[in-house]
Structures are given as C-alpha cells and as structure tokens.
C-alpha cells in the first residue's frame, strides 16, 4: 500500500514526531522510500505537509541528503521567496553548519532578510532561536519582546518567551506570558498546568511561609482547572497531587483541609489508574510519556510510605 498513506497514518498517531528521538528516526528512515516513490510528486496539501515533517526529522537524525532533497522540492513548488521556505532553508543551514563562523553568517543573513521585510515572522523566530542556541539569551529575549509588540496574538511566541523567562528565574514574568497565552486560547489546559507549575516552583524557591501557602492554593486552582479541561492530563494530576500533599503536610489541622484532602485523594486515584493502565499496555492508554508515568508512580509510592509511617 501507498507509502503516503502509511506516513499520514503514522503522523496522525504521533502528532509531534520531534518529541521523541525514536519517532524522528522512524520518519527519517521512511524518507528515501517516499522521495523516490511516484506519490512524492502529487501536488496535494498532505504531500507538502509530509515533506515538511520529513525535512525536520531528517535534519534531526542527520540524514542531510534526504533533507536537502525535501527542501529542494519545497522551494521548487513554493518559491525560494516564500517566508516558510526561507525559514526552512535557514534551519537547514543552521543544522549543517560546522563552525561558529558559519552560524554567524546565517545569523547575518537572517538580519538582512529582516531589514528588507521586518514582519517576516518565521525568519524572526529563526533568528531568535539561533541567538538562543549561540547562548545570547538576553538578545533573544529582547528580540522576542519586540516581535510580540508588533504581533501580540501569536501564542507560540508568548509560550516561548515564558520559557525563556523561566530559565532566567523570572517567574512572575513567565506567568504573565502564560496568562497572555490563555487570553488567546482560554482552553489551553497544558498552559493552565504550566502556570500552576511555575507558581509552585517560585513559591518553593522563595521565602515567607504565609505567602507560600497562598501561592500553593493558587497553584492548586490552576492545576484543578487544567484537569477540568482535560480529564487524563497526567501533568495536571501530578501537580494537583504534589501541591495538595505539601499543603496537607504544612498544616495538619485546619477547617479548610477537607477539600484539599479530597482533591489529593482524587488525584491519587486518577494517577493510579493511569499508571496501572499504562503498565498493562492497555489499548488507548499508551500515549503517555514513560518518564512521566514513572515519576507519578514514584510520587504515589512516596506518599504511601509517609502515611504508613
């Protein structure tokens, strides 16, 4: 059967192939077969989508020949001046450059393109990620804020800025950016959970126990919202269990504890279900990240020991 169909169904099962090395490897192994098949000349939306995915995977796995061919065909079809193709070309150049000098020249080329067309978003994003990759985080943050000042409705950029601020330890700014994402996408449950995580981390790192309890309660609200929007969101349940556990530990007897305890219990039950079904390889439960499931199992075990003591 057609390799096109095979690749499409693979991509529908693994919507983000760049997350795991193994999925990238699988995709890039299919690339030569696809590129030499007759179906690769079809001019449909799906084919070009596959070309882009194959290009990314091949670049990642180091199959530069296939990547070059993918890029060649994409630029033949859409023209070298298309913003997206320009960004992909830049990506290819970044990946295949061997010396810092070459990277600098790629960066210079980005700046030249941006001088001509200051609103070229894909190239601007490439420039920012290259700056980051070169270790110039401050410049990257500056460039990203200026990008967001002229196009403030791009959730991807807000999410990225948030993660940059987070790496710098600027938790408040990080949460602010995530809240901007929520203004654009009010259903983004993973962003809710992320706000909970950042709030929790900043409260744990900070001082002042009264503030800490408040921040924990705030984090619980965000985690609870995230699992309300997605009933099997592992990170949401994990955060909910972790933070409610800390609260229970912090003040053993209080009138408000009933609610926290029941939330904790609920999160434990859900996590247990996820862990058990994932371990038994049940159909429809295999999508979770293995490391995350292990961490959840660990958290449950630790909690049980504490209670039994």
């Amino acid at each position, binding site marked *: 059967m057609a390799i096109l169909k095979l690749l499409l169904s693979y991509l529908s*099962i*693994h*919507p*983000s192939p*760049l*997350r*795991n*090395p*193994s*999925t*990238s*490897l*699988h995709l890039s192994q299919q690339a030569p077969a696809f590129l030499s098949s007759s179906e690769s000349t079809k001019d449909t939306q799906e084919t070009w989508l596959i070309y882009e995915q194959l290009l*990314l995977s091949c*670049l*990642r*796995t*180091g199959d530069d020949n296939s990547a070059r061919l993918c890029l060649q065909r994409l630029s033949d079809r859409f023209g070298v001046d298309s913003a997206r193709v320009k*960004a992909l070309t830049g*990506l290819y150049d*970044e*990946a295949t450059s061997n010396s810092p000098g070459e990277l600098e020249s790629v960066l210079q080329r980005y700046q030249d393109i941006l001088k001509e067309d200051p609103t070229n*978003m*894909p190239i601007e*994003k490439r420039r*920012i*990620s290259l700056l*980051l*990759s070169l270790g110039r985080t401050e410049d990257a943050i500056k460039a990203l804020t200026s990008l967001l000042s002229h196009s403030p409705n791009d*959730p*991807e*950029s807000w*999410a*990225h800025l948030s993660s940059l601020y987070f790496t710098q330890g600027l938790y408040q700014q990080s949460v602010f950016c995530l809240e901007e*994402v929520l203004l654009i*996408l009010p*259903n*983004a*449950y*993973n*962003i809710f959970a992320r706000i909970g995580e950042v709030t929790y981390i900043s409260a744990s790192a900070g001082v002042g126990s009264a503030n800490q309890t408040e921040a924990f309660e705030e984090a619980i609200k965000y985690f609870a919202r995230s699992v*309300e*929007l*997605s*009933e*099997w*969101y*592992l990170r949401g349940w994990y955060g909910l269990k972790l933070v409610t556990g800390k609260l229970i530990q912090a003040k053993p007897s209080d009138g408000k504890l009933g609610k926290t305890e029941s939330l904790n219990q609920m999160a434990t039950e859900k996590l247990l279900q*996820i862990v058990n079904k994932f371990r038994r390889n049940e159909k*429809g*439960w*295999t*999508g*979770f*990240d*293995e490391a995350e499931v292990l961490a959840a199992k660990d958290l449950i075990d630790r909690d049980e020991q504490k209670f039994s003591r």
Partner: protein
Amino acid sequence: MASKALISFSSLLLIHSCYSAHEHSLLMPTTTSLPLDVAIETIVSVVLLCFGIVLGNREELKPISWSVWSGLLEREKGCGQFGYLEERVGFLDIRAKRAEFAKWIKGAEVGSSSQRT
C-alpha cells in the same frame, strides 16, 4: 453497504415526492396545499436520507465534551490540541536536537535500550 442502500432508496423517494408535487401543481393549479401523502413521503425520505448519511460516516466521531476529547488525545497520543505550545516548532533549536539525537542513538546502539515507537 446499508447506508448506501438507504441513501439511494431515500433519494428515489425524495425525487418521487418532488415529481408528485410538480404534477399535482400542474393538474390542480387552483389548490394551494399539497395532498397529505406527498407531504408525508417528502418528510420520510428526508429523515431516511439524513440517517443514511450519518450511518455512512467512515471517520470516527469525536467526543462532544471538550475534556473527554482532550483526555482521549492525551492518553492515546500523548499530545492534545495544544501540544504545539510546548513543542514550538517555529523556535526549533535544531542543533541541540541533533546533538540530543546523536547521543540517544549512541546509547541505543550500546545497550539495546527500550525503544518506544
């Protein structure tokens, strides 16, 4: 198969009822309402046609509730509707990804580590 039969049968009924209505208006131009049997035939054919189309749907239906749907995506694919906000392909740091992959493949070759594809 059943849906195709249902669709063709109900389409025939619909065409027939249209034809009857047309003939009726030609034969009796003074009356304003249709006879009851033609009206019933039209309604029944349309209802059957709707059923046929719904039955013939090949794609899997998505859950109506948002939380159930995103939960399903999370546990089946590990990536919901907003996974792109965490992956951020536009800001892909390809050099780091390449280095990570090179390291991973080396580890996989040394000890056949657990590969999940």
